[in-house]
């Protein structure tokens, strides 16, 4: 290859303190679940990392009972300032154990260490810090003088940001006085179980946080449990709809963060080099396993060719490979199943006549990898323009006028995020008002902050996480 070959710079795997067995966490203790144990694998090597005990339906009941007891007995009665202390302690422990968590996350999920180290873990800690600050100020947050918690929250999270999604769910629930039972994703349970250790270290009262590894049936049992007051789910639209059907007619409160097919709109006066960076960050961050990924690039026709040329050059410099290498930009696809799904959709793009360009980067022989891919000549009617691919695959469409850009951007069943690239401030504001998306980024993409509410429109779900608005989902107001 090139003349400047970066030597491998792998982070030490030992930092992860990987154990051969992990167990569910109920009522402050690690317990034997009565479900069938599952093996979690390293998607970059296909090796088994650890065996993880799972919960059965009866364990769900035990965990919900523990959460209820903790809710009634301790947590809901505790002054907010006291709850804040626990949350601050958790936040600090996440920081203290950040290298361990980052390496473990990269091993289990396949994401590059530079993302788990610089993005996932620090943002997870930030969520606990932020929500700790709210715990004693809820009476002044504009919900009335004395907003009440809801009770026991049943939470189900996805595999793309295992620790970060846990933080998004648990931090606001605890800050507002709820207790939780959380089910991590089947393929990425490990950091959630290290988080359980952190709960022990922080001396969180038993039962406040319970973590039950398992498959979809455990999620369904948790969501459907009669003594759960609030359900929060992040994952696929399909499962989200099933949950909504399942709990329809009950008094349970629900928030759903589902799929997306975000439009990233580039006008001809955009700062092109930074737009290219934003496009790359929008779709290739976390291998494209991001529900708000900018997976539909809408480019003004007058600059489409120039932008695509720059984009292809830039994408060809992305380094794909060992997630633990500090120089890796794109890691492994999380599972064989997901890789097959990506391949299937890419084949449909070929079959429907889009032009496929794939980065010439070397691809490791073992593990689940997919080279960054850009489809041009994509039309609205193609599957790759409508369905969420959830992988490092970008679909490029063009438009002629601002109105057409808005129409095409909104022409999707989803509505989680969008991006606008232009030097014209007035156009940014006009576009942002027209776009049906929960988050609209201007001249940037994929920026997150615990203070900024995040959530969707239409099939991207409802409810918001983060900020003052996010707290509301865990309060009786």
């Amino acid at each position: 290859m090139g003349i400047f070959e970066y030597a491998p710079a792998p982070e030490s795997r030992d930092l992860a303190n990987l154990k051969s067995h992990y167990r569910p966490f109920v009522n402050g203790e690690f317990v034997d679940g009565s479900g069938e144990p599952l093996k979690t694998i390293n998607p970059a090597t296909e090796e088994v990392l650890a065996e993880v005990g799972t919960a059965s339906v009866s364990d769900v009941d035990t965990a919900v009972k523990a959460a209820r007891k903790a809710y009634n007995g301790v947590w809901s009665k505790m002054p907010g300032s006291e709850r804040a202390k626990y949350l601050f302690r958790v936040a600090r422990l996440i920081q203290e154990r950040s290298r361990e968590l980052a390496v473990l996350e990269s091993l289990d999920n396949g994401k590059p260490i530079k993302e788990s180290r610089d993005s996932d873990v620090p943002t997870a800690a930030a969520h606990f810090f932020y929500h700790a600050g709210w715990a004693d100020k809820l009476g002044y947050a504009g919900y009335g003088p004395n907003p009440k918690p809801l009770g026991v929250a049943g939470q189900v999270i996805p595999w793309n940001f295992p620790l970060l999604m846990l933080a998004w769910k648990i931090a606001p629930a605890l800050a507002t006085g709820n207790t939780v039972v959380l089910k991590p994703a089947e393929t990425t349970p490990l950091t959630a179980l290290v988080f359980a250790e952190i709960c022990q270290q922080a001396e969180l009262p038993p039962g406040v946080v319970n973590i039950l590894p398992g498959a979809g049936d455990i999620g369904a049992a948790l969501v459907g449990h009669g003594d759960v007051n609030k359900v929060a789910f992040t994952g696929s639209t399909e499962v989200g709809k099933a949950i909504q059907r399942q709990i329809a007619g009950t008094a349970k409160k629900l928030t759903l963060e589902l799929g997306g097919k975000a439009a990233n709109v580039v006008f001809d006066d955009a700062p092109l080099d930074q737009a290219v960076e934003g496009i790359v960050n929008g779709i290739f961050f976390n291998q494209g396993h991001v529900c708000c990924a900018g997976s539909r690039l809408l480019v003004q026709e007058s600059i489409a060719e120039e932008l695509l040329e720059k984009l292809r050059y830039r994408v060809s410099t992305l380094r794909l490979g060992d997630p633990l290498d500090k120089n890796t930009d794109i890691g492994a696809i999380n599972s064989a199943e997901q890789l097959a799904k990506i391949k299937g959709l890419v084949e449909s793009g070929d079959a429907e006549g889009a032009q496929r360009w794939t980065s010439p980067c070397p691809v490791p022989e073992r593990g689940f990898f997919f080279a960054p891919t850009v489809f041009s000549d994509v039309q609205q009617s193609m599957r790759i323009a409508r369905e969420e691919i959830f992988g490092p695959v970008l679909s490029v469409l063009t438009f002629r006028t601002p109105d057409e850009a808005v129409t095409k951007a909104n022409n999707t069943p989803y509505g989680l995020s969008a991006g606008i690239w232009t030097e014209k401030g007035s156009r940014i504001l006009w576009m942002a008002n027209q776009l049906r998306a929960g988050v609209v980024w201007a001249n940037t993409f994929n920026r997150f902050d615990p203070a900024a509410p995040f959530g969707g429109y239409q099939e991207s779900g409802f409810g918001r996480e983060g900020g003052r608005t996010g707290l509301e989902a865990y309060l009786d107001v």
Partner: protein
Amino acid sequence: MTATTSSSAATATPSPLADATRDEASLRRFLHGLPGVDQVGVEQRAAGLGTRSIKKAAKLWAIDTAISMVDLTTLEGADTQGKVRALAAKAKRPDPERPDTPRVAAVCVYPDMVETAVEALRGTGIHVASVATGFPAGRTSREIKLADTKIAVDAGAAEIDMVIDRGAFLEGRYLEVFEEIQAIKAACGSAHLKVILETGELATYDNVRRASWLALLAGGDFIKTSTGKVSPAATLPVTHVMLQAVRDWFVQTGELRGVKPAGGIRTTKDAIKYLVAVHEVAGEQWLNPDLFRFGASSLLNDLLLQRRTQADGHYSGPDYVTVD
């Protein structure tokens, strides 16, 4: 370069670029029609690339490459022939105990010291570069700038580092700046021209991009960030914008032009960050002293120390390299 630069690699300057410099109005239209630079975005990208981890063989390669790209510089009022000769000796044998150490690319001095430097470096292949055109402020007449250049070239300078008229640029008199660069380029004869934009005084990244294109249109062989006399001097984001300009120039015209960050780059760690930027922003063709230089005086010693550290397995300290 790679297959990605397929369509427009013609050798002649394409007609849109020739039109750009027809008159003041078209030059302004062209420069202001260049895509803007988003400050947050470019700084984020520069910071991100700065975290590449370069070790072992890659680091040794980077150190040697960086040494071969150094324009060893002395630009002081107190420069003497003795100082210049000492610098020339250092350029020839950067690390006397390790003859495999590469030589630097050039020695950079004021015009009146060119003769001394040429004498001291004869037969070595190391170029003598000279800052002409009323360095560093450039606040003097065109006649004097041209004379300054001619004196340096006649004395044997193979490279001329000129400063642009920042006043004229900031007033929007782009054609004047353009014509001055062209005139100096003509006065250079066969010497290479490096155009110093003094980016610290241009203030915005948009201006840096416009000045870069202006210098490229006027025939500058290199675009250079700074004189080293103004703070901030070279920064990574500014260099990113300039690398992007030479890459875009290459894609449009097929011509290769160089970039030289100067001032404030003192450590091996910093130099490697610049090399990563060259590699990933412009492309690996630019990883070459013909197309990338460091303007520096103190950087070389840190490169030499780090080179020894890589070879010996331990750090030896500043007393083990020469002070010149």
